[in-house]
């Protein structure tokens, strides 16, 4: 048994040694043929790796709008009109506590009139709780997001967008810049953070403010033009049990609010959509990669076939010295497999360097990605696996051709 194993191991090692020797002898030709494979593998791996970053960028953009999976939004209404905000907030908190839900935020919109140097301007304000920043991946260009303690400030914390900050002259946040909020009771707010511009059209001032800071600024009688402040109630719950939890929270919240109240809950995150929203992108990426690889394989196959024709005499000589047909087959096959494996490793290495380069990150929207994914291991494995598969496929025909060589004719070739 051991003797058989030793012979088998020697056979494998000697085949690899022979393949490596052939690669060394024909390194010029091998290098030329493998450049195509290395480039193809590099392109394939880069596309797959870059696709993962692009997908993450797309996912995070979706999460900024709809929240992370699974984010549930709820709206509250009663038959006799709007429920009292404090009553709803208390019922909401009780419901959250009962279900052990850790991350939740109210989210609504309002307007504040802000005094700029060139006059008072109505500014749209998104009114949220501290958890909103984590739930919606809110990015800040400057400063920090709200904390629970910000609700206790006498001068409410305000997080403004870049357009807002620009109109103030971009003061350093370390100087605690303030802003005058005018109304029936003028108040001074402190700017604690700045959100980056979302696009070139993001040119009007907007702001975030905590719900607990915003509500006291609201007039007792709502503005007939703007309507009353009507928040939705959001919570971030485990994706796996989202549907069951949503139903349970919905019922509990409604019961807590009492007779006549209606709670409508729905999932607002992208993962709630049917199917994989990134499937078209993935399919496109895979399609491009396969075409690239096939082109590389075609080039390799052509060179390998031509090479074997030029090596008929050598194969005949080897056969005369005891190389079996099987040995010649595996030897020729191993040459391309070993070669493409090395080309695959090189291609993957270059792909990793490319995908990790800052330039590529910017091109893929990587600058906006918070949780930048590492280079996907599956992309590297796919790259090397594809290289080996291409080597095996491209080596198969030449190997079969090599086996068919007639030793006597080959020696006289």
């Amino acid at each position, binding site marked *: 048994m051991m003797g058989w194993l030793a012979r088998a191991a020697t056979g494998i*090692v000697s085949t690899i040694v022979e393949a490596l020797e052939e690669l060394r002898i024909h390194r010029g030709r091998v290098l030329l043929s493998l450049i195509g494979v290395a480039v193809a593998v590099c392109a394939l791996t880069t596309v797959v790796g870059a696709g993962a970053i692009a997908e993450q960028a797309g996912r995070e953009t979706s999460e900024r709008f709809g929240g992370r999976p699974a984010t549930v939004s709820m709206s509250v209404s009663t038959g006799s009109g709007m429920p009292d905000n404090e009553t709803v907030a208390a019922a909401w908190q009780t419901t959250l506590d009962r279900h052990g839900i850790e991350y939740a935020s109210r989210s609504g919109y309002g307007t504040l009139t802000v005094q700029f140097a060139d006059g008072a301007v109505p500014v749209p304000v998104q009114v949220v709780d501290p958890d909103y920043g984590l739930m919606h991946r809110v990015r800040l260009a400057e400063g920090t997001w709200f904390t629970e303690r910000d609700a206790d400030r006498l001068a409410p914390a305000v997080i403004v967008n870049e357009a807002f900050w620009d109109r103030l002259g971009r003061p350093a946040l370390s100087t605690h810049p303030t802003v005058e909020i005018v109304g029936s009771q003028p108040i001074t707010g402190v700017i604690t953070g700045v959100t980056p511009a979302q696009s070139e059209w993001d040119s009007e001032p907007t702001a975030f403010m905590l719900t607990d800071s915003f509500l006291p600024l609201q007039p007792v009688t709502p503005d007939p033009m703007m309507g009353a402040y009507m928040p939705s109630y959001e919570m971030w719950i485990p994706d796996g049990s989202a549907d069951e939890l949503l139903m349970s929270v919905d019922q509990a919240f409604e019961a807590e609010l009492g007779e006549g109240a209606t709670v409508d809950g729905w999932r607002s995150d992208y993962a709630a959509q049917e199917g994989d929203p990134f499937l078209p992108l993935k399919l496109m990426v895979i399609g491009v990669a396969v075409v690239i690889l096939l082109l590389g394989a075609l080039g390799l196959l052509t060179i390998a076939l031509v090479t074997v024709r030029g090596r008929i005499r*050598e194969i005949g*000589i080897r056969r005369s010295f*005891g190389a079996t047909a099987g040995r010649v087959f595996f030897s020729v096959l191993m040459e391309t497999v070993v070669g493409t494996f090395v080309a695959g490793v090189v291609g993957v290495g270059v792909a990793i360097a490319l995908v990790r380069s800052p330039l590529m990150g910017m091109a893929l929207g990587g600058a906006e990605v918070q949780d930048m994914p590492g280079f996907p291991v599956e992309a590297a494995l796919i790259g090397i696996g594809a290289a080996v598969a291409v080597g095996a496929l491209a080596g198969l025909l030449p190997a079969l051709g090599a086996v068919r060589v007639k*030793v006597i004719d080959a020696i006289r070739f």
Partner: protein
Amino acid sequence: MTLVEARGVGRTVELPDGRPLTILSGVDLTVSEGDRVSIVGRSGSGKSTLLNLLGLLDAPTEGELAFLGHDVRRIRSGARDRLRGSEVGFVFQQFNLLPGRTALENVQTPLLYSGGREFWRRERIARDMLERVGLGERLTTKPERLSGGEQQRVAIARALVRKPRLILADEPTGALDLETGAEVMSLIEAVAAETGAALVTITHDATIAARSNRHFLLRGGRLETADAAGASSAVEADVAEAAA
């Protein structure tokens, strides 16, 4: 010990137009360890075909051919290849060295196909063999930079590196001058004598043929026993006819 035994061996091939062409017929030959056999004959008489049959590169279409007592037609292809690798060493007229490889790498080639210790110790064995044929100083030289005689010595080292029991030399001096040819033959005979291997030489050269102790003449695909003088005159007649 009998290495090869041919009884009524023939070889027929099919021509492109479908007609059969008989190259060899009714060949009877026994080669034992230590034999020195020379086979002479005109071009196209079937010398190389006979050598291919003896060296397990080809199989007869008629008759019986046994190698170490085994009917070669019953030995499976892979086993025949392995048997050839371990028991037969070829020396070709055109040397057939692998281009681009050094002398040492060329001599190591047969050892790639032997299992166990020979494979793992292939460099040492090949180095010793090259030193034995007087090329210890040319180990890393590629064939393109070796003289004809040196190339044939590398080929001899390669043919004998696995210590085969049968050495088949196909016009081993055909590409060499007279003096170098004689040196090469002396070397083959000396190395064969060390291991007790049989040496079968196909040649057009009467002096080379005369070095053997058994002489055969191939005429029209039939093998005839001849003495040294007969073999020599047959070669001379062949040369004269070719010149005319």
